[in-house]
């Protein structure tokens, strides 16, 4: 999802480094030096100075260790000492995102700016139309008095030269629910977790990479190093993330030291079956609408912003929950790691006793690089657990609905109500309004599929594959035979 840029590159290189050092038992000794090595004295800095660059790197590493940047009490506390704490922890911070204050101060405070295109014209519509008298012409050019400006934007509309522009604040622009705002006292963005739906859109949008997710990678690596039983559960979107077939990805995962690898698609099959049943029951009981529940960010959006819709949200557990529940029933001692494209799953997993950890595709890929795993050099791993092709299709928009629809048909029931399926492909500000309309019961359709990410999970914030190619790859598997029951 994230296009090539320096900030992303830096994050990936840092990840690779800490994984490598940790697995070679060198992280404790090396971690405090990483910021200095990457930003040696005398080389050009990307922010105001080398020291600030280093500070930013330190906090980035803290987030990679899964430590809250906001919790730092003692600035002199070293990364190695955080690492010691991390290796002892057995729970995680509830707030899965942090805003890195030293990195975030660079976006404009005011949204409106007069550019050089201003001719100081005779008509001066900006001066006349500004309701607060904030505009005046000084030395032949319009100037905004920011102490009076209320960000109404009238000046941008009336200027015949389009000389006044609106400068967006990327994270605010991206957030569908107004959860990220500037704290006027600190001048830094703050996430209101009472509103945040963990979609990760702010993280992708920020050009300074100032929004960080708290990783659990060290915890996973530690379990691998201690030779614990640990199973990777690959989300259906995985096939669009790497340029090789699923069996080869699975083989590479085992080469990392995971003791098991499974497709979350089989949990998706269970979700479809139960959701189909639930739909029939609900409609026969007189309900007007049921929505999907597999996207945790969507469910969070309903809980926090569209409570009127909550009763329509399916109560069927998500594919991740079914998958980890099944695996824990089979082997309670094996740790379970959900590997996916999603920030919100981190939150969902914190409340799922059967899912021990969450990794992102980016983190998985960094593990391949750090441990020198190449797809062509690993033994492909044949997956044997039966999965339906529809379960594999969950990762693209409309995939969930087609799976549930097919279940209903296959069940061969005669009491099936007419289904009118609707889709919301990506939750943005407009979609939240649309959901509010659904809550009033005035929208058409009795089955609503909602995915917070555009395109479905393949468009998630922690993906590495190109969305278009990823959609094609998922569709190929969704059109395939799946793995039949023996």
């Amino acid at each position, binding site marked *: 999802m994230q296009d090539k840029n320096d900030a992303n590159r830096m994050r990936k290189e840092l990840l690779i480094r800490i994984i490598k050092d940790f697995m070679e038992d060198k992280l404790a000794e090396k971690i405090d030096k990483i910021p200095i090595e990457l930003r040696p004295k005398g080389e050009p800095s990307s922010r105001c100075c080398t020291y600030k660059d280093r500070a930013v790197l330190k906090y980035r590493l803290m987030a990679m260790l899964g430590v809250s940047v906001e919790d730092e009490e003692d600035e002199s506390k070293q990364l190695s000492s955080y690492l010691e704490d991390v290796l002892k922890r057995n729970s995680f911070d509830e707030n899965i995102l942090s805003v890195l204050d030293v990195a975030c101060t660079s976006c404009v405070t005011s949204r409106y700016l007069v550019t050089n295109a201003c001719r100081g014209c005779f008509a001066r519509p900006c001066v006349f139309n500004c309701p607060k008298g904030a505009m005046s012409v000084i030395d032949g050019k319009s100037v905004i008095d920011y102490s009076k400006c209320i960000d109404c934007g009238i000046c941008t509309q009336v200027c015949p030269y389009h000389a006044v522009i609106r400068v967006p604040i990327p994270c605010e622009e991206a957030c569908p629910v107004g959860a990220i705002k500037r704290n006027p006292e600190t001048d830094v963005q703050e996430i209101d977790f009472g509103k945040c739906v963990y979609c990760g859109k702010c993280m992708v949008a920020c050009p300074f990479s100032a929004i960080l997710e708290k990783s659990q990678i060290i915890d996973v690596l530690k379990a691998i190093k201690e030779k614990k039983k640990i199973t990777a559960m690959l989300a259906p979107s995985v096939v669009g993330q790497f*340029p090789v077939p699923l069996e080869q990805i699975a083989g590479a995962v085992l080469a990392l030291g995971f003791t098991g690898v499974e497709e979350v698609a089989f949990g998706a099959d269970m979700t479809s079956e139960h959701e189909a049943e639930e739909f029939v029951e609900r409609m026969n009981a007189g309900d007007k609408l049921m929505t999907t529940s597999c996207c945790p960010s969507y469910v969070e959006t309903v809980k926090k912003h569209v409570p009127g819709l909550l009763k329509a949200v399916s109560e069927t557990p998500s594919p991740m929950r079914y998958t980890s529940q099944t695996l824990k029933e089979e082997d309670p001692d094996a740790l379970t790691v959900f590997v996916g494209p999603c920030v919100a799953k981190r939150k969902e997993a914190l409340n799922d006793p059967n899912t021990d950890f969450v990794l992102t595709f980016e983190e998985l*890929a960094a593990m391949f*690089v750090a441990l020198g795993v*190449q797809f062509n050099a690993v033994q492909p791993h044949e997956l044997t657990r039966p999965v339906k092709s529809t379960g594999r299709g969950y990762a693209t928009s409309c995939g969930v609905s087609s799976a549930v629809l097919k279940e209903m048909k296959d069940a061969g029931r005669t009491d099936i109500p007419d289904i009118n399926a609707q889709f919301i492909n990506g939750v943005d500000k407009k979609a939240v309004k649309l959901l509010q309309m659904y809550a009033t019961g005035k929208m058409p359709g009795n089955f609503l599929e909602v995915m917070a990410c555009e395109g479905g999970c393949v468009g998630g914030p922690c993906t*590495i594959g*190109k969305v278009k*190619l990823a959609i094609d790859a998922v569709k190929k598997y969704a059109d395939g035979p799946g793995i039949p029951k023996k």
Partner: protein
Amino acid sequence: MQKTKVTICVGTTCYLLGAADLQELETFLPEDLKECVEVIGSHCLGVCKDNQYGNAPFVKVDDELIANATVGAIIEKIYEHRKGE
């Protein structure tokens, strides 16, 4: 006229560090190059190990290796190789 061969490394290192974005190279090729370039994906070219991952992604234009490859750099190199043809 012989086609110029572009080999994009999609080994794990190059893939994560940028080759994922190069996969669509063909769609970015200018009209005059479309017919005379052959793009293929390759396993790890083996250079990431000696060079450290710092210079990935690696791409080969015919036999010439490009480090830190970008769509722009690849296209420029293709033109260079086709000069005089």
